[in-house]
Structure formats: structure tokens, C-alpha cells
């Protein structure tokens, strides 16, 4: 096992720079997830750690040793590909033992390690099968098995669950997390799915357009997003974000672009008239007397909670309630925001205020 440090790493294709000086310190044994919309550079960064892409600038070190010029096979890493990349003409056993055979490990050791990995992943009965005779979930497990057998310093996962159906994805998610808890191998995992990131990671790196937007634990990102992008990216349903400004006279209030008024916590220290974005997570709203009037547009029960889309002025706001209340479209609700959990962002820079 080893730490991974990415220092001011850049990547250009010709004149186009796709990673603009990325820095991430991953501790030994940590499970770090790189997340962001497609094209943000997360997969490119992962492939650079693997050695499949050249590094245009900066350093990548594994276990304290800079590996910029080290061939992939000498980096002691294992990667699980989005497409699984199983060797179709080899059995499951041969697939999993491929790297050990290449390393000329003794036959009985190969067999032992393949069997151990197969046991962990529940593949014992499939060792003689070919990849074409496996289901999607089984192929996914074989791909992981091939990585485990190596006992590498670092695991790299490139969107490993995106080819699976929703139910299997949830199941594999917990299996991968349990696997990490068991093996404690440093893991870097790429996904575009923020739910995957939230549920599995020790720390999340949110990326956009080749920049790191924020690094932190899942709940850090959720509770204290650094900027509008992270605020909107993390959380489902997403945070309600309303553009507007601070009232110029009278009581200190937030005035939405359409003129609607929302309360602010008493202790805010903001310039009058400043442009801000008012951020409120759906579950940080309660219903009670003396709140902001909102018209119910749509009711979406999920069972555990009920999501109500309502309109305050011209803005749509989503409210998630654990209680089941009797409302229907067209009703008016009085919403009370939990001001202790309010997020305010600079309207121009998007930074957290």
C-alpha cells in the first residue's frame, strides 16, 4: 500500500490544456473518488496515475517516489476498466492469474491467490467459464478479481459500475466499499455519479473543466460546499439556488431576482445590495406558520420522503419532507427555511460567503 500524490499536474493535447495544475494528496489506505461531469478530466487524471497517458507538467508520486517516467507495469497498480477489459479468449481463472503468470510466480501460488480472490468475490464456481458466459455483474467481479490478485499498492477504478443496471450498481457499490474496508488498499475511483461518490468515498475530489473545485469528506462537501458548482453537483435532489441581492433598505433580507423575499440569519454581515445566491437544501425547509408563501406545483412521493416542487414568486423550489402531509397541486404552503443551514454564495464569483 502506498500514498499517491499529484502535484500541479497538467495535461495538454497539442495546444489544448485539459488539466490545469491539479494537486491532490491521497493518503495510504484512503478511498478517494474523483467526481465531475464528463469532460472534467477525471478519467485523464486516473489514466495518468496508471501511466497510460503522458504527464505534460507536474509530478505524480506513488509511495513517495515520482513515477512520471516509470512504465505502467512497474508502478505496482491495478486498474478496473469501465469496459472490464477481460481477455475474451481466457477463462476466468486465466484472466485473474494473467499478471502473476507474467511475473513468473510459482504455479501453486498463482492458484492459491486466484482462489482466495475468487472466494472473496464469490466467483469460485465460475473459474472455468469464459467472459462471454458471464453476466454483467459477474464480469465486473472478475475485473475486480484480476486487480485483487495482484495485491497492488494502489487500485484504480475507472467508472466501473456505469455499465450495470441500477439494482446491481447499488449492490456492487457496497461490495467495493466492503472490499476496501477489508483490504485497505489505497484506492482512486472515478465516477460521474455523485451518489456513488457520496456513499463510497473517504474523500471526494470534485473536478470541473480540468480544475479541482473542492476536496473533502462527503459530508464536508455536502454541508459546506466551497462554491456554487459543488453546491449544485453534490446532493440529490439538488440544492435550491436562487439568484438575487441583499435588500438595500429596511430589514436585512434576501430579495430574489423576481422580487420575492426570503429571510436571512440575524448575524449575516453582508453589504447592502450585494448580489448573492441563496442556497437551501430541500430537507432544510419545514412547514409552519409565518413562513414564505409557496404554491405547490408537483408532489413526488418516494416513500421514505415526499418531495414537493413549489413556486416562490417565479422560482421553483424543491422541498423534501419526512412527514406525509396532505397537500395537492395548487395549494399554498408556508415554508420556513432552516436559517442555520443556509448557504450563501457570491453572485459574481460563485464563492461561498
Amino acid at each position, binding site marked *: 500500500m502506498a500514498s499517491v500524490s499529484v502535484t500541479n499536474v497538467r495535461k495538454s493535447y497539442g495546444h489544448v490544456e485539459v488539466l490545469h495544475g491539479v494537486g491532490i494528496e491521497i493518503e495510504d489506505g484512503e478511498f478517494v473518488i474523483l467526481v465531475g461531469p464528463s469532460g472534467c478530466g477525471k478519467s485523464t487524471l486516473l489514466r495518468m496515475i*496508471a501511466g497510460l497517458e503522458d504527464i505534460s507538467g507536474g509530478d505524480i508520486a506513488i509511495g513517495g517516489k515520482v513515477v512520471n517516467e516509470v512504465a505502467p507495469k512497474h508502478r505496482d497498480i491495478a486498474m478496473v476498466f469501465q469496459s472490464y477489459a477481460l481477455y475474451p479468449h481466457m477463462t476466468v481463472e486465466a484472466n485473474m492469474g*494473467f499478471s502473476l503468470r507474467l511475473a513468473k510466480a510459482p504455479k501453486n501460488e498463482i492458484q492459491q491467490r486466484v482462489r482466495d480472490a475468487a472466494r472473496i468475490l464469490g466467483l469460485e464456481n465460475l473459474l472455468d467459464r469464459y*467472459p462471454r458466459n458471464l453476466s454483467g455483474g459477474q464480469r465486473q467481479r472478475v475485473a475486480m478479481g*484480476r486487480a485483487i490478485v495482484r495485491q497492488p499498492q494502489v487500485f484504480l477504478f475507472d467508472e466501473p459500475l456505469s455499465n450495470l443496471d441500477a439494482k446491481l450498481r447499488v449492490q456492487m457499490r457496497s461490495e467495493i466499499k466492503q472490499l476496501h474496508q477489508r483490504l485497505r488498499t489505497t484506492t482512486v475511483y472515478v465516477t460521474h455519479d455523485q451518489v456513488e461518490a457520496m456513499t463510497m468515498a473517504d474523500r471526494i475530489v470534485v473536478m470541473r473543466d480540468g480544475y479541482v473545485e473542492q476536496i473533502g469528506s462527503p459530508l464536508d462537501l455536502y454541508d459546506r460546499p466551497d462554491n456554487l458548482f459543488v453546491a449544485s453537483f453534490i446532493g440529490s435532489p439538488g440544492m435550491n439556488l436562487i439568484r438575487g441581492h441583499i435588500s438595500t433598505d429596511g430589514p436585512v433580507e434576501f430579495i430574489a431576482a423576481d422580487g420575492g423575499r426570503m429571510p436571512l440569519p440575524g448575524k449575516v454581515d453582508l453589504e447592502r445590495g450585494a448580489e448573492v445566491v441563496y442556497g437551501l437544501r430541500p430537507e432544510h425547509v419545514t412547514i409552519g406558520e409565518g413562513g414564505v408563501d409557496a404554491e405547490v406545483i408537483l408532489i413526488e412521493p418516494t416513500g421514505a420522503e415526499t418531495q414537493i416542487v413549489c413556486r416562490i414568486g417565479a422560482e421553483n423550489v424543491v422541498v423534501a419532507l419526512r412527514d406525509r402531509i396532505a397537500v395537492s397541486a395548487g395549494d399554498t404552503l408556508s415554508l420556513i427555511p432552516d436559517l442555520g443551514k443556509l448557504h450563501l454564495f457570491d453572485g459574481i464569483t460563485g464563492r461561498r460567503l
Partner: protein
Amino acid sequence: MKQSLGHRLFIWTGVAVLLIWSLGPIYWTLASSVTPAEDFSARPIHFLPQRFTLDHFSRLLGIDLARIGGVEVWAQFRSALLNSIVTSIAATVLCVAISALGAYAFTRLTFPGRRFLFGAVVATLAIPAYAVLIPLYQIMISLRLVDTYLGVALIYVSAYLPLSLWLLRSVFEALPLSLEEAAQLDGAGRLYIFFKIVLPLAGPGLTAAAILTFLGAWGQYLVPLIFSPNVTKPLTVLIPEFVTKNFIDYGLITASGSIAIIIPALVVIFLNRYLVSGLLAGSVK
């Protein structure tokens, strides 16, 4: 879906015309090879042989010559058959081996002039053989390669390499790169990946290239006419020699033609098994 009678009639007529067009000459060759020599001049022409004989084959293969009489051709035929087989197989093996390595380099390695070089090699497809025969003859003379297996095979290779290279490059390009990357991370080197991962998966493409090269080499006439005058003379050059100034030996021509059909047919039937697609199923996605 029910098709109208007219539509079906139209289709069946088309199929029948195509079948007659492509199989007709083959049938005529096979039928003539078992027809007695006297019947060749019979009029009207019979579609089915009226009498059956294996005399032409006996004469060709030198069996029971005393009974039939005539000239001994078995020695010539045997060596021509052998020459055809040897040069075609040699050309096929060399061509597929060289083009597989070359196509892989053109697909996965980046080196300066890669696109230009590939374009230049493939562009030679457009050069007709007769345009370069004379200079080629001079080169082969100076290399002492005229009328040698190696010389003829090398000319075939140069003729079929561009096509094979082109075909295999598109085959390799279609293979998922992630497989090779996975192997790379697993510790495999370039050549190991090529032989253990890429080649097994490119089986159908290699087979197609082999069939094309073999059939092309088997049917070559102009090149061996010039470069294989004696020792390495193949069937294509020998068979027309059964036509002499005074006599066209239809029996020998059709009997040797029948055998010349059977060999490539066997090769195609044998290799066809490896043309199966779907070999990649289950590796990615």
C-alpha cells in the same frame, strides 16, 4: 410477411441466374473431365456426359498408362501441383506474418511519417503488375531469384501485402484498446500483448487475409509465366501448355483444372471455421 408470387419469382430467377453464372463453368470443367475424348466433338452438345470415363485422370496421374497410351504428363503435373502449393502457402504465411506485424505497428505505435508510409504502401495497390514486370525481372535476375520458390513467393507477398495490411489495420483498430492497456498494466510487453492478446482476437481477420492471399497467389498467371519458367512452374502456367499447335487436349485441361479447383476449395473450407465472428463477446461491455 407474405410475399407476392411475382416478387418470389423475381428473386428465384435472380438466384438461378447467379448460380448458373458462377457454377456453370465449374460444372462444365468437372463434366468434361469425365467425358471420353471422342465425345468432345459430338454435336449437338449434351449437357450431361453421355458416357463416363476416368481416362483423363489416369493419363494425368500416370495410372495404367499402358492401356490408354499417350504421353507421360504425370511428372510435369506433379511438380506443377507441388509448385503451386508451395509458392501459395509460402506467400500466404509470409504475407500474413509480415502484414500482421506491420498493421499492428501502423495501428498502435506512433512514429514520424506513419500516415504517409501507410498511404504509400497501400497506394502500390493501384500499380498494375505488368507496369513493373520488366524492371522487376532485371532485379530478380541480379538477385538470382528467378525460377526459385523464394523469388516467386516474395513477388506474391509484395503484390498482396498492401491489401492484407489494409485489412488487418482495420481489424486491429476495431479491437478495444482497453484490453491492451489492461495487459500493459498486468505487466505485459508490446510483443507479448501482440502475440497473446491481439493475434488470438484477430483470428477472423487473419483468416480473411490468408484466404485472400492464398487464392490470389494460387490463381497468378502473368507473374509465374515470367518468373517461373521451369523448375517452379505452377499449374496455371502448365495447364495452357496442354494446348499445342495441332491439338487441344480438353481432357487433360479439364482434369487438371478440376484438381486445381479442389485445392483452394479445401483451403477455404478448412479456414472458414476460423472466420467466425463473435470471438470478442464478453470481453468489454
